[in-house]
């Protein structure tokens, strides 16, 4: 299994509070991603990173920011959480080598915003 951990695994918070989710990898992969999963939508990309300090927006980036100060860590921040951000959040990693470009996923974080 790919060495990807997410913390926390579960979190309940209140509307308006800041929240930071952490993704940590031990694979030294270049690319890291944050997705959210909601019923009927599959997974949707929030932000991704293609290197330290290099990030870009995905399909549903509004209300989220990210940072990557080290290869192994990718942080997702909700500056002021809203109930619409209640979801399951997945981190993923990939490395484009020899055409093997699959993404490997972390275990997910269930976030509830009351």
């Amino acid at each position, binding site marked *: 299994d790919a060495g990807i951990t997410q913390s926390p695994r579960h979190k309940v918070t209140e509307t308006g509070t800041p929240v930071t989710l952490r993704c940590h990898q031990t694979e030294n992969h270049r690319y890291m991603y944050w997705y959210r999963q909601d019923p009927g939508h*599959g997974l949707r990309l929030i932000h991704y990173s293609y290197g330290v300090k290099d990030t870009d927006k995905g399909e549903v980036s509004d209300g989220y920011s990210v940072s990557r100060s080290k290869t192994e860590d990718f942080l997702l921040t909700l500056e002021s959480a809203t109930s619409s951000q209640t979801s*399951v959040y997945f981190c993923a990693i990939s490395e484009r080598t020899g055409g093997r470009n699959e993404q490997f996923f972390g275990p*997910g974080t269930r976030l509830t915003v009351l």
Partner: protein
Amino acid sequence: AQTVTQSQPEMSVQEAETVTLSCTYDTSENNYYLFWYKQPPSRQMILVIRQEAYKQQNATENRFSVNFQKAAKSFSLKISDSQLGDTAMYFCAFMKHPHNNAGNMLTFGGGTRLMVKP
């Protein structure tokens, strides 16, 4: 933009039988990849099978195989000899060939919940 559609929200199959999950996609790209991921109740996303669009041969992984029809933009998953452990959500996903620094972004379908009955 790409879209991926899974038209079967739920399916069931008897243990040891064969089931086919449907997936269609829309893209103007010619070079891309397609994937099926499995998500059991544990919530972990597990890669089942991948297909490169430039390959005409359908991918197979043990009991799992795909029927890739590029012209029709169809990518179905066949599970043979279904087992109880195959019970899960299955997601079809599309990835266009990455350019420059662009990551390998996945576009997912809405998923099909498969129940394998004893």
